[in-house]
């Protein structure tokens, strides 16, 4: 049985059908004029061999103008699977995504450089020394492999997390460009039994990480049936450019038939028009260009329509994920993906705030609620992420899990039907006839059925705000809970066959 996710009964939509079609048509026009600039030769050859018009661009970097005709795009949309399965080490954690079904899976990620530690020093009142308060103090530092293991471990136990994208970039002294991929894959997979999606640092490591996944899944065929890993590639750089190295990676992933998210992240105001219609036409064209290339490499490659649009901050021209427009763009993209019946990789919960607190809660909750209501299938909702995805805080991830439990409950379908109403009429008549006129006794059958939403789990005693301290205690409890590691025999084979994995990650060796 796959994970249930959240089935959004009537998804929120901003665009009319006519507006969706207008964006589609505009994207088709963009793909032929101006088309895309490709810095990747192989992509050019593939597209050209299927009828795309290609012109060499003169300049310092070798590049080509590629004009992709509509029929190629439509053919690709036809061959791209409308249902994508993302497997998992624990088969019960598999995700089944139908492009036309707004079932939302909540996913962590993405990679940050900074890990935010939390401490609670005590402060004493200057005038009344008997008065003390504990205040959270956040200390940033570079992320490590050990942090990644911790993050994967806690996310295994966070109930609302459906899938895992690594949350922290591993920057230990013994991590190099060559061994980073195998270590990030192993650290994540060994501490988490949910689906694992990742980008690739070095294409040279693709075979090693795929082999690792085959060993864990039980073989090549088993990995095809239960793809426990998938990839995300930002092959298109906005505006409208195929990047050389990530396009190489994308092509190779497609050749192996593994699921891949084709992602584009234009910034409205700088790398895309700031107006909604403009950024939408462009991002849609960029994603469709990637999907078209992937389907030409290997028709039937499972792809996710990946959208990470964002608006620029007007004070710095950096990303403003907390801006309202960012959520609008994301919701529009969900609709576009649904228009093509493709599963959508969407984004919410990314905040501008640098530390957990009121700003981070407001920014992330706003986008989490509205984007989730639009029904994307694979919602990268930035568990624990701060400062525009550059900082990860495990405490924030624990807080996010609680918020998503509320959201999950909110998005339940209403149960209003004739038998239910008849039962309620009976109840009302019974209670009104009693002297006390209280419905309380009818609560009990529902109390433990999950039909009544829980209180905010980090509520203090009402006199002080203890949210962080209570969440911190829960975080420690989750870290103390065991996780199901890769079994000893498979682990031994992985260390034997896959070069570069740090010996300290071998839990069986370090225990003996």
């Amino acid at each position, binding site marked *: 049985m796959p994970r249930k996710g959240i089935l959004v009964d009537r998804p929120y939509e901003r665009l009319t059908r006519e507006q969706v079609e207008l964006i589609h048509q505009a994207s088709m026009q963009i793909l032929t004029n101006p088309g895309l600039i490709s810095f990747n030769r192989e992509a050019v050859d593939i597209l050209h061999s299927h009828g795309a018009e290609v012109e060499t661009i003169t300049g310092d970097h070798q590049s080509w103008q590629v004009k992709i005709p509509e029929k190629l795009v439509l053919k690709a949309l036809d061959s791209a699977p409308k249902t994508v399965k993302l497997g998992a080490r624990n088969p019960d954690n598999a995700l089944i995504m139908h492009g036309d079904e707004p079932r939302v899976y909540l996913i962590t990620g993405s990679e940050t450089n900074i890990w935010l530690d939390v401490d609670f020093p005590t402060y004493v009142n200057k005038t009344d020394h008997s008065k003390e308060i504990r205040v959270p103090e956040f200390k940033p530092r570079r992320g490590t492999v050990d942090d990644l293991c911790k993050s994967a471990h806690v996310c295994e136990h966070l109930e609302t997390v459906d899938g895992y994208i690594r949350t922290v970039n591993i920057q230990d002294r013994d991590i190099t460009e060559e061994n980073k991929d195998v270590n990030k894959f192993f650290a994540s997979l060994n501490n988490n039994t949910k689906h694992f999606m990742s980008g690739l640092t070095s294409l040279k490591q693709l075979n090693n990480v795929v082999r690792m996944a085959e060993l864990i899944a039980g073989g090549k065929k088993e990995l095809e049936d239960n793809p426990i890993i998938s990839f995300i590639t930002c092959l298109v750089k906005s505006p409208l450019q195929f990047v050389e190295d990530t396009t190489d990676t994308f092509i190779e992933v497609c050749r192996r038939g593994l699921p891949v998210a084709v992602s584009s992240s234009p910034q409205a105001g700088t790398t895309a028009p700031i107006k909604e219609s403009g950024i939408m036409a462009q991002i849609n064209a960029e994603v469709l260009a990637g999907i078209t290339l992937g389907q030409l490499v290997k028709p039937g490659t499972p792809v996710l329509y990946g959208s990470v649009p964002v608006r620029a901050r007007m004070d710095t021209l950096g990303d403003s994920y907390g801006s309202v427009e960012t959520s609008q763009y994301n919701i529009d993209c969900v609709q576009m993906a649904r228009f093509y019946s493709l599963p959508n990789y969407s984004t919410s919960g990314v905040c501008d705030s640098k530390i957990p607190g009121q700003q981070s809660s407001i920014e992330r909750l706003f986008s989490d609620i509205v984007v989730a209501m639009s029904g994307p299938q694979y919602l990268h909702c930035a568990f624990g992420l701060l400062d525009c995805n550059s900082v990860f805080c495990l405490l924030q991830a624990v807080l996010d899990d609680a918020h998503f439990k509320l959201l999950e409950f909110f998005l339940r379908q209403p149960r209003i039907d004739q038998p239910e109403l008849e039962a309620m009429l009976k109840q009302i008549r019974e209670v009104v006839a009693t002297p*006390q*006129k*209280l419905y*309380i*006794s009818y*609560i*009990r059958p529902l*109390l*433990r059925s999950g039909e009544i939403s829980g209180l905010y789990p980090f509520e203090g005693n009402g006199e002080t705000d203890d949210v962080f301290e209570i969440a911190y205690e829960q975080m420690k409890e989750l870290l103390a809970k065991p996780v199901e590691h890769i079994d000893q025999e498979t682990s031994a084979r992985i260390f034997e066959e896959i070069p570069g994995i740090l010996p300290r990650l071998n839990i069986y060796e370090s225990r003996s």
Partner: protein
Amino acid sequence: MAEDIISLIKENVIQGRMTKDDEGIDEEIVGQPGVAELVEKALTSGLSIKDIITKGLSGGMNIVGQKFEAGEYFIPDMLASAQAVGAAMEILEPYLAESGVNVKGKVIVATVKDDLHDIGKNIVSVLLRGAGYTVKDLGNNVSTQAIVDAVKEEKPQFLGLSALLTSTMAGMAEVIQMLEQNGIRDQVKIIVGGAPVSAEFAKSIGADGYGEDGFQAVAVVEALASSTEN
């Protein structure tokens, strides 16, 4: 056999099942006798009233209280158990005098005049009954005179007054003043409660106690009862 019935009474108090039709915490027990049916059965079997109350009803309520403290039970669970015990006490009432069981006091409760809110007062009634008190509930929007008359007639050990509105809480002070004017203030312990009421307010009007919620109201009554005994 006798122990079985007492154990079942205790277990059904814990389950919060007054009658056989009630659902409990555990599944598939609907249809099995609840506390009311079991107490009737205990009486016809000639079991000791004292055992029914102390081992069955109070024994069950003690465990319910522990579960509530531990966060395992919620207020609806407590109320269901208290209602079951209240129903049992009504069945047992005719036998209490000759049973040798220490009977807990009588409590009159009322929401004061011009105030129609009675959820809190009703919950307090249920909990007091569950704790073994005899409760006479006068209802809501009860005139000061009617409350004083009831105290004269029923001679309760305790009077519980409730108000939800800042505009009606003054009615509590009026009741106390009229009881004083009638020379019967000292015959009854008065506790007050309700959203706008506070311990300070209770003290200022000369009440004997203040209950912040239903559970505290019961605790305050118990404390006043033991201080009276001492």
